[in-house]
């Protein structure tokens, strides 16, 4: 009898690899290529921006461009390209927005995460998310028609188009970003911190302020930075409400001054310049400045977020050598740096009020007083530091107020504020919590209210315009009559096209990042690329689309150019949601499949992807919502205001809801009702997509029981 071993030995060829072809390797390669695309696009955008700016900087010196304030690009004799006011305007309007949005956003986030009862909290979270989808042109429309009128008539500004209205609108737009990210950071502080603190008899507010907020601080910082990025990169709303005057507010606190921003300038002027003229190049140069600003903002935000996540996972060793030094330095000298910044501000304020010499003398006297105090006082200077901060801060504040009201009122207001803070400090913990919680609740209420007012206005003004004809007919009389059927169709075409191009690549890239990428330099570069693509302002995409699809590839102003531009813009959203939902599929599914003899790709395509499908769908719908609400990317690539027929080929231009609304609101008088109707249709369209996405995600989270 032959031994079993011998029999077996004859047929072990069945364990062998067949042929040289390995599907898994091929799949790996294809996915890697898709993932790299996002990074390549970022480099390509940078390259094209510089290429199209071309010899601009040789003709116009950089100092003139950055520090001169004469922007006269169309002057026939001697065009001038001083962008100082424009760059300053961009920063000022974003700064103003942050002054409003940061406190409101953070307080709202605290409210949602820590204070509101679960049901309300859930509702608020969903609404804020939903509102992040409101198209910027709808905000712009509201600002132009309502807010500006209010500012002019009630606050008595000479014109409604002001820095203030730009900042308010931007603040409302940045709110959802800030609230969502900050709320995430706060909620992810582990529960046991809370319990430990409460168990020691701390009030909830003490727990929040002493334990939770410090724990979430880097996440909250990231929220603020991302909000800032959004505000700086925003185009349509700013363009519509700020007046676009090339002036610098005088005094610098004059919030009723009109402003001009980089995005607004590009948005207005790019449509009218001949390609490759000096003016055209100047606009690309502006775009480079914008891109650099947002690039730095994105890098900072991502750096902070990744550190925060590492800290949460406990991966961050307290003093590892690999850490970049700068943040450590900042952390260690936080007080000194605050002190320094405050002193500089204070000094600058003094020079504003007095002339330089007096300012220096006053500063010297102040320093002298501090020194004397330090020497003769029985207390250490440390104990005064707080007071000194406060003193400086309130002087600054008093000065700002004084430019708005008279001196007496300003000082009274500051004193009242200081008194309030003082009283709050000496209240007993329970009452303190009461007061603080009411403030937080009011802030949350204001956030929600401001967003609801806009929605309410659009709905109540838009509804009368909605008729069957409005939805099914073409416009007449430059949009003053008739309907918006071709625009609806155009928007749908653009959106669907964008999705068709973006989804395969985005999903592939997401799969690559979650299933194949090993942590290393290549993955890092890819991730950085995607993050930056995500934060790139939509107008920059518009310029890219113009330079590459419209001009270089010679598609002309066409549907396909718009679709491709939009596709690039929503690519990061799709990549991210795919990556996240694929990552959330438990490893045991993959092992179960592999243990049955499947290849890696089989286990991904047959088990992991179907399970991750709801998540991927969510990303897809969010991408659609975003694509259908954007104006800036199609401004120079695809959209026209009037066209004889529906586009039949992808190389024809299209009409779109966003662009139609933009033109109606800014250039066609007496079209308010039609505009509001268009805004309503656009809003409903986007909201449907967003709520569908949120619904899919939530019901999937509820259902998932592995």
């Amino acid at each position, binding site marked *: 009898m032959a031994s079993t071993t011998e029999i077996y030995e004859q047929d072990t060829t069945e364990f062998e*690899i067949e042929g040289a072809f390995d599907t898994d390797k091929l799949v790996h390669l294809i996915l890697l290529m898709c993932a790299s695309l996002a990074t390549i696009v970022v480099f390509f955008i940078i390259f094209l921006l510089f290429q199209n700016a071309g010899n601009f900087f040789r003709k116009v010196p950089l100092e003139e461009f950055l520090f001169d304030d004469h922007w006269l690009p169309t002057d026939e004799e001697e065009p001038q390209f001083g962008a100082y006011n424009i760059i300053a305007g961009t920063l000022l309007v974003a700064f103003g927005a942050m002054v409003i949005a940061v406190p409101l956003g953070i307080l709202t986030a605290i409210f949602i995460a820590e204070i509101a009862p679960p049901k309300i909290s859930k509702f608020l979270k969903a609404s804020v998310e939903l509102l992040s989808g409101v198209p910027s042109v709808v905000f712009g429309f509201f600002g132009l028609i309502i807010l500006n009128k209010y500012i002019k008539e009630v606050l008595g500004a000479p014109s409604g188009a002001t820095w203030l209205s730009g900042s308010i609108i931007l603040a409302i737009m940045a709110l959802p970003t800030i609230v969502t990210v900050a709320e995430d950071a706060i909620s992810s502080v582990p529960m046991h911190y809370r319990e430990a603190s409460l168990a020691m008899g701390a009030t909830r507010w003490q727990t929040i302020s002493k334990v939770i907020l410090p724990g979430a601080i880097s996440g909250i910082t990231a929220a603020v930075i991302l909000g800032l990025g959004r505000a700086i990169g925003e185009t349509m709303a700013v363009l519509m409400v700020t007046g676009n005057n090339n002036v610098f507010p005088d005094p610098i606190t004059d919030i009723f001054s009109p402003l001009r921003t980089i995005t607004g300038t590009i948005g207005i002027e790019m449509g009218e310049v001949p390609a490759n003229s000096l003016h055209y190049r100047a606009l690309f140069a502006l775009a480079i400045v914008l891109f650099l600003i947002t690039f730095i903002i994105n890098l900072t935000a991502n750096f902070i977020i990744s550190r925060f996540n590492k800290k949460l996972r406990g991966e961050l060793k307290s003093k590892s050598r690999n850490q970049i030094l700068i943040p450590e330095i900042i952390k260690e000298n936080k007080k000194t740096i605050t002190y320094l910044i405050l002193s500089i501000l204070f000094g600058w304020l003094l020079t504003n009020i007095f002339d330089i010499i007096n300012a220096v003398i006053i500063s010297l006297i102040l320093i002298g007083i501090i020194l004397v105090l330090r020497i003769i006082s029985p207390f250490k200077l440390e104990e005064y530091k707080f007071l000194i901060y406060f003193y400086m801060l309130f002087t600054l504040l008093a000065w700002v107020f004084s430019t708005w009201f008279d001196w007496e009122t300003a000082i009274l207001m500051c004193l009242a504020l200081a008194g309030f803070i003082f009283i709050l400090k000496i209240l007993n913990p329970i009452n303190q919590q009461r007061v603080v919680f009411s403030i937080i609740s009011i802030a949350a209420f204001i956030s929600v209210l401001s967003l609801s007012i806009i929605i309410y206005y659009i709905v109540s003004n838009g509804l009368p315009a909605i008729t069957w004809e409005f939805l099914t007919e073409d416009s007449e009389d430059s949009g003053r009559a008739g309907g918006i059927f071709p625009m609806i169709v155009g928007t749908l075409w653009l959106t669907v096209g964008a999705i068709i191009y973006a989804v395969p690549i985005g999903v592939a890239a997401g799969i690559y990042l979650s299933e194949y990428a090993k942590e290393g330099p290549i993955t890092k570069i890819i991730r950085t690329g995607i993050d930056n693509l995500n934060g790139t302002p939509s107008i920059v995409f518009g310029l890219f689309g113009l330079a590459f699809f419209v001009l270089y590839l010679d598609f002309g102003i066409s549907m396909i150019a718009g679709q491709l531009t939009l596709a690039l813009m929503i690519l990061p959203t799709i990549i991210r949601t795919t990556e996240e939902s694929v990552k959330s599929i438990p490893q045991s599914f993959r092992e179960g499949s592999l243990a049955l*003899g499947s290849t890696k790709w089989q286990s991904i395509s047959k088990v992991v992807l179907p399970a991750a499908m709801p998540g991927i769908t969510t990303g897809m719908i969010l991408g659609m919502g975003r694509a259908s609400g954007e104006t800036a990317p199609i401004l120079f690539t695809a959209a026209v205001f009037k066209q004889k027929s529906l586009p039949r080929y992808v190389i024809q231009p299209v009409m779109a809801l966003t662009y139609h609304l933009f033109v109606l609101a800014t250039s066609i008088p007496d079209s308010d009702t039609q505009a509001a109707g268009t805004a309503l249709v656009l809003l409903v369209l986007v909201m449907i997509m967003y709520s569908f996405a949120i619904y899919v995600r939530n019901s999937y989270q509820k259902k998932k029981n592995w």
Partner: protein
Amino acid sequence: MNLKVKTKLVKEISESQNADIEKIKAGNDIIIECKNLNLWYDDNHALKDINMIVKKNKVTAIIGPSGCGKSTLIRSFNRMNDVIEGCKTEGTVEFRGRNIYGNRISAMKIRKYIGMIFQKPNPFPMSIYDNILYGPKIHRMRDKKKLETILKNSLEMAVLWDEVKDRLKDSALGLSGGQQQRLCIARTLAIEPEVILMDEPTSSLDPIATAKIEELINDLKEKYTVIIVTHNMQQAARISDYTAFMYLGELIEFGETEQIFENPQERLTENYITGRFG
């Protein structure tokens, strides 16, 4: 017993080991044999010079304290460790006399012959029907009639048919824990493996579900070879024919279950079995 003494004991064992294996080898119905198997997770030497055999149509149990490398060992029998980054294997594991870590061997195909059941039941989030036929389908079986037969046979074999025959299209995630684990067994049976590896298959189940699975393992012996990792010594004693005791990455003692439990040759084994450490 302190750690130093334990490690010293571990060192003395290797010589007597080979003798045991020779004795068991006599029957020449060996299906898996590992020789000088070493495995590292980065710098962690998780398996140290393992020599062991598995006999056809028998149940082999692997016991030992937590972290001693049981899962690692069983996973190296069908190359499931390949998936783990930084994992390095040396030595050989022969399946039917062929080294599965050798040249030109496809891990996918090995896993078709050596299936695996995991600690936590892991049915795929699809219907019971799709779960069972997942394996046959990825192995390119398309004949409808054959698929139906496989479905019924494997579910019957796993003693699940009667419980699920009316709800084959329902999601497998709706089953109870014990049912899910039997479903996973049926899913593995559907690809008709020769060896079934089980890594603590009952540790997340209640006593009744556990008893059912144990009974099932006993039935499986007729057609399959079973290797089972367990923390539960009574379970090992009840269901296995051979037992391997591992400690700190080494195979301390390997022999017939009766002998291991009634007359262990090594002090460490005895201490572990009598519950003096664990």
